[in-house]
Structure formats: C-alpha cells, structure tokens
C-alpha cells in the first residue's frame, strides 16, 4: 500500500467528488513506455543503492511536463514493494562508525588548515584511519552509512509481469490510498455479497446490511466510533479491504471522504465495471469441494419441488451474521437454509453452533461430516451426518420429513419502516 506521502488525488469540490489519479486517459499512452523503462532500471539494478535507483526513476520523467512528484514517488514505492534490499542486518555499518569515530575522537577537531594549536588535519587523520583499518578512505566513506535506508543496495527485484501490470497496480494503489481519508463506505452487491462481507469482517469493519427490493444487498461499512463523529480512523481498514472488493463481481461502491479536517465531505464512486484489476486471485465459486460436488449432484432442476440456490440468503442480527451455503426454495414458497460443515474441530463446531443458536428461529438444516471426534451433545434436531460425500437423497429426505415453517415472515426484506440506518433483521421475535 502507498503511504499518504505518495497519494495523488484530485478534489473536485464543486462536483463534490474525489478522483484518484489514474493513468488510463488517451494522453497517458506514453506511460506504458515509462513503465517499461522503470522496470528495466529495477531489473538491471542489483547492487545499486535505493537512492541511485530512485534518481534513475526520477530521470525517466525529466522531460515529462505532466507528472506530479507524488506520481513518481508512488512508482518508486510500488517498485520497492516488490524488491529485496540488502539491509546490513549484522550491523557492519554500526561497527565501522564506532571504530572510525573512536579513532578520530582524540584528534578532534579535524581541521582544514592545521596550525600549532590544532594540528590534526582532516586529510591526514582520514588517511591514517584508513591505513589502520586496511581499506581505502573512499571505501570507508561509502560504507559508513550503508545502513541508512537510502543507501541500501538492491539484491533482487521480483517485479511486475509487464509495464501494463505496473500501471494497473498503480491505478488500484491510488484508489486504495484515497480511502485513507474515508469515513464511511457503502457497497451494493448481488452474487458476491457473501465474499464482500467476509472480507469486510476480516478488515475489522462494522456493517449495516439492508436487502433492497431489486434483490441486491446494501452493505454500509464503518467502525465503532463512526457513529459518534466523523473519523478517518477506519480509512486504512477500508483501503486494506479494497483489493478483495475489486476481485469480486457485480458491485458498486460509494465512499465518503474528508480530505482535510473540517473540509466538506467528498464522494468516491467505483464499480466492478470500472476496469480496475485486483492482484488477488478471483473468488472461488465454492468454499469447498463437498459443496461443489453436492451442487452438481443436485443439479439445476427442482427435485420434488425443491430448487437449490446458492448463497442467496443472509441472516443477520446486530453484528452477527450467518451466510448459509445453500438455500432450498420450494414451489409453495417455503425456504430452507442448509449449512455444510466439512472437516471440523470441536472448537469450530462449537462456534458454529453458537452462531446457529442466534438464528434458531430460522429453518436451518445442518449437514455435518462424520469425524473421529465425538460430536457435541447439543446438536440441533435438524442435523444430518454424512460420511465421505453428502448424498442428495438424504437431504431431500430431511426436507420432506421436517415440518419446515413458512419462512416468508422471516424473509430478509428491507425494513420498510423508515428507510433509515436501522439494520434489517432477517429473523423476527
């Protein structure tokens, strides 16, 4: 991630928008050429100091009239991020300094023009120290501050696959950095909302979920103190979360940013159609092979009126959420949720059951893999054990025999009352 020092963002106060720097205009065509030259510098840069590499990168843009310093600094950061520098771990420079300074101390001050009182000439003493250490002064002078970050030498560059990849990473990095100023983020999503929510939780963000009439979910993200004041405290969490969001499909994002203390709020808008590409791999459609295999065996067609749908439902109460693996929808309107627990440890299963208890009034079928560990005694009645593979016949059997209540009164519609920030509760009491 970039730091604030490399962040380059345009504030359109009249339009109330934030526009992170992005190199996709037709006028930026020649940046591909610059990117190629930067990659060349780093690929051939082993042994050179960070300062030398940075100067070489800056020189690439010498004749460019349209290139803010921050853009150059951002490229340097992105290049350094995938570089390994020699770090003088064993403190050679520290020891050298100690030796040199101790030897020089008794000749202090080293003067340019010695006289009778001060006879230690700078040149003489430096030459004497050099011969004492058995190296040339030039070498000593070069190594004296080798541990300073600017003077670290490049060992290896594990760079970007192509100039285009570097530019693409740059574009994402600037959007990400702009989010440091964000106080709140709203996401509209359809298929991938489960993944989005999971990553938002990993980024330690709090959510407010609303199911919209068009079937999409609206997820508002912020942090504990956000309700008390405008705070940019969670901006870094949102920035961290962004690459995961970009790897998802079919979403829109709106963030509120406060560039300066007391300044008005500006909006950053983004969607899956904006052409940003994440360096994270695309999301797997299925969490596990068990689920994938089961979905294939069940098939797309209804079985005795029950159609299998994937992750179409979310249960949430406060900050607790439950995202079942499958939803079975019957022709008569009944809905049953199914959660598959493949490999499990007693702790994992206990935590899962705790979550399920929160949503005990929803129709949930639990499929648990048989294990050598003894299952807990407090399993809910609608639990189904399976051995190696979960058979569709067994599931259908359960669906048929259980007196599943009509889930329609518990469906997760919009709260409808006032359209405010109140979270929608998918399960009523």
């Amino acid at each position: 991630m970039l730091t604030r020092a490399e962040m380059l963002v345009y504030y359109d106060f009249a339009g109330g928008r934030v526009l992170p720097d992005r190199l996709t205009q037709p006028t930026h065509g020649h940046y591909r050429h610059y990117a190629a030259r930067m990659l060349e510098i780093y690929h051939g840069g082993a042994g050179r100091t960070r300062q030398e590499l940075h100067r070489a990168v800056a020189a690439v843009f010498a004749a460019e009239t349209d290139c803010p310093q921050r853009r150059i600094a951002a490229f340097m950061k992105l290049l350094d991020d995938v570089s390994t520098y020699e770090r003088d771990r064993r403190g050679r420079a520290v020891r050298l300094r100690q030796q040199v300074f101790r030897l020089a101390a008794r000749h202090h001050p080293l003067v340019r023009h010695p006289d009778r009182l001060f006879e230690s000439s700078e040149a003489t003493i430096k030459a004497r120290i050099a011969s004492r250490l058995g190296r040339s002064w030039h070498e000593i002078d070069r190594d004296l501050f080798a541990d300073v970050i600017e003077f670290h030498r490049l060992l290896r560059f594990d760079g970007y696959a192509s100039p285009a990849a570097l530019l693409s990473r740059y574009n994402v990095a600037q959007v990400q950095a702009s989010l440091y100023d964000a106080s709140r983020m709203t996401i509209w999503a359809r298929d991938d909302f489960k993944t989005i929510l999971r990553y938002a939780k990993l980024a330690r963000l709090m959510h407010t979920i609303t199911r919209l009439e068009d079937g999409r979910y609206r997820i508002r993200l912020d942090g504990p103190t956000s309700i008390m004041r405008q705070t940019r405290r969670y901006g870094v969490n949102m920035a961290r979360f962004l690459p995961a969001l970009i790897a998802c499909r079919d979403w829109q994002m709106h963030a509120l940013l406060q560039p300066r203390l007391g300044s008005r709020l500006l909006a950053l808008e983004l969607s899956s159609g904006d052409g940003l590409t994440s360096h994270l791999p695309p999301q797997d459609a299925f969490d596990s092979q068990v689920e994938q295999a089961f979905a294939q065996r069940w098939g797309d067609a209804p079985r005795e009126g029950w159609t299998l749908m994937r992750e179409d439902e979310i249960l949430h109460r406060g900050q607790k959420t439950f995202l079942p693996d499958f939803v079975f929808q019957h022709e008569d309107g009944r809905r049953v949720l199914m959660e598959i627990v493949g490999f499990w440890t007693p702790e994992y299963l206990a935590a899962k059951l705790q979550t399920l208890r929160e949503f005990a009034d929803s129709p949930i079928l639990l499929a648990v893999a048989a294990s050598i560990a003894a299952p807990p005694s407090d399993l809910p009645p609608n639990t189904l054990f399976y051995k190696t593979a979960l058979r569709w016949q067994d599931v259908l059997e359960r669906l048929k025999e259980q007196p599943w209540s009509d889930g329609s009164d518990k469906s997760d519609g919009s709260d409808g009352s006032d359209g405010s920030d109140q979270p929608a509760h998918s399960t009523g009491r």
Partner: protein
Amino acid sequence: MRHSAKRVSLSFSRGTLVLEGLARRELPAALEPLGIWDARLPAWRGDAMHYDQVVQIAEQAGLPIEDGVPEWQTIHWPQVQLHTLREEQQQAVRNWTSQGKGYLVMPTGTGKTEVALTIMAQRMLSTLVVAPVRDLMYQWHRRILTGLGYDAGVIGDNVYRVCPISVTTYDSAYLHMDRLGNRFGLVVFDECHHLPGQQRRDAARMSAAPYRLGLTATPERSDNRHVDLTWLIGPLVYDLPLADVTGRSLARYEVVRIPVYLSDAEQARYNQLSDVVRRYMHARRRENPKYCWQDVCADTARTPEARAALKAYRARQAIEDRAREKLRVLEDLFRLHQGEPCLVFTGSNAMAREVSRRFLVPCLLSHCGKKERREVLEGLGTGRYPVLVANQVLDEGVDLPEVKVAVVIGGSSSTRQAKQRLGRILRRSGNLPARLYEIVCADTKDVQRSRRRRSSDAYTGAKTLRKEAPRC
C-alpha cells in the same frame, strides 16, 4: 423498576464502552452527553474515556451492571529506588494526587520523570507511558527499570510486548489503544502537547483509565488545541514557570548568532532559484491576491510551473542548509570549545551526515538502533566522543549528558523546537553559563527563521536573565 430484572453489561469494545441489556428509552438521562445509541448492535456506545463517569451514573441510577471493562491490576513494584523529590516536585505530586487526573507544566530539566515515577510508585496500578518518539520510549523503559525495578513492556518500534507496565509512542498508542484501552488504570502522557492532534487524541479517548497524568514543558500549541488537554487528560494541576528554576536547577545560557555568507557560486544559484519562486508567486498573485504557499503545494499535482517552483524552493532551502561556509564556522567553534562536549543540531538528515563525515563525529539519526544510540549518548557523557550531531531525534526530553555548548545549523522555525533545543543545554553544572550558537545564512530566509526563533519566550527569558544576573 423495569430494568432491574435484566442483565445489563458494560464492556470495552475497540476503544469504546458498550452498555448492553437496556432499551434505548431505559437509558439513564445522564448518559446522554457521553455517548450515543448504536443501532448497529443495538446498544448504547460511548468513548472509553468516560468509563468512571458511566459507572458513577449507573450507581446513581440504581442500575446494577456487570462491569467487564477493567483489566488493569494492582502492581507490586519489585524495588523502588527513587531520588528524594525537591519541594516543587513534591508539590506537583500532591496537586496531581488530589485530583487523580491532570497535567503538569514543568520546564525541561526539572525532573518531570521523577515526579511521574513517584506517582506511579504510589498509585500501584497497571500503567501505560506514552512518549513522543521511540528514544524517549526506551528512556522511560530504562527509568522504570532503575527507579521501580520493573522490566516494562514495549509497544512500538516494531515490538509489541504488552505488560501491566508498558511504554509506547503516540503513534503506536493511536494505532493500538482500541485494543489496550482497558488494560491500564493509569496513563502517563509525556510531552503531552502532542496529544491533542486530530488523530492522536484517540490515544486518550480510547483509554478507560480513570487516572491520567500529562507532563509537558510547553503546553501551548499554535493551533490552540491545548485547551483540549483539560478533557483529554484533566485540568492543569501544577505550573512551574521557567524563571522559578533557572539558576537553581538549570544553567544560565546565552545565545550567540553567527551570520555566514554564501559563496559566490552558491549565492548566484540561490538568487536564480529565488527568482523562479518569486516570478511564479507574482504571476499567481496577479490572478488571485490571496494565493499562498499552501496553494503552490496543492497545485503541484496540476501544473508543471508549480512543480518547478516547489523544486526551486527546495533546492534553495538545501543551499541554505548545506552552505559550505557553515562547516567552516563549525570548525571554528570546535576549535574554540575544544575539550567541552558539544551538540550540533542540523536542519536535515543529509546535513547531519555531512557534518558527521567531515569531522568524523557520531550522529544520531532515525536509522540508528537502540544500542548505537545508547553507546553514542553515553560516549558523549564519558568524553569518548567530543561532539554529537543530530537532526530531530533529540528535539524532546531525551536524557543527555551535561552539555554546555550547542550549535544550531538551520532548522525549522517553530517556537517549540527552539525551546526544546535550548532545553538540551539547560543543565545544572557549575557556574558557567551555557551557550547556544546559531549559524545562519545572511540575506536569506534563514535569518527570518532565526528571528522568529528568538521571539519565543525561551529566548526572551534568556535576554532578561543576562541583564539581571551578571556572568560569573
């Protein structure tokens, strides 16, 4: 009462307090100004700093709560070895103790740390000490070890070792207080004028500590936010003016300014760069009379001209900063004060290294590890090293060996920095006055900065003092 049957709990949640088990309408009215209803949970939520007040309100409302907040504990100090406090220090301890919350204003060198250690020793509670920079953080670690016999935890400088007694920096406290806020019953904010920053104040807000102590020599901030110390820490409980201690526990000092001139080549380049800046500003101001330097920085993203102007400005600063002549004058000062330990402050890391390479004297910069810092600082004290060069790292409160001579080469113009830097040489030692040299480029911005520095009250104090008390 309706709520008496319910289970009501108060917990610490990421820097805030959460009161669960009451419906919104059942909340005591007194809670109103301290927090807000959080529909996301749903529960009442407020800043952790209101912890003792919330508990009090619940008691007054006859509301039995399960209090899961405090995770701090009683501390039994392994070995307390503190100096006997001077009268003014004892007064500071008494004033703070009567409140349990508040900050002390005491000039550098008057033993703020001793006062804080005494308070910690008496309070016997899990304590977090927040210092501005990591040097100071490690210094607190050492002082706690020698004074109280406790090996404190360290949070910061890529270390995360939390103990019931821990030391940290403001930046780390901002980052981690949402996890640590309920583990310490006493928080000490050293150089607490740093606390009211827009982000850093979270270090106080997210802490549930009922006992808070702030220490500073210079509470005032140019943005006036120091008024917030009153609610972030507590009221000003003790103020020891500089004049009360100078001459007793501090040395007298005088300021000597030495103008240097740029070489012909430097001057020519300097004028050329100044021209670039001036022409640019002139052109912009014709369009917009209020155009100022901040606007230039903002415009660098948009126009090549603004970038050129900024580049010229920085190059010009570098010339001032690194003028060859300054090194020559420094050589003269070293000759003059041979045999006396001497501190040199520079305006940039590059200049600090340049001085270090020219005279082969140690410099303390941010790349120096903990061990090297200590070796160098001790070396100056024992006379192993004649000189120590530093940029910013020594700006505040780092315990230094007695030094009577300091030289400032360039540097920022903020009032506080000047005071802090002066504080470095204000050390009790004999009758000889300390001396601060300023090497400034004549006919440049440097002179303006020096004037501003001298206008700060630390310098004003110095001048009057020199008149009243003749040199010995």
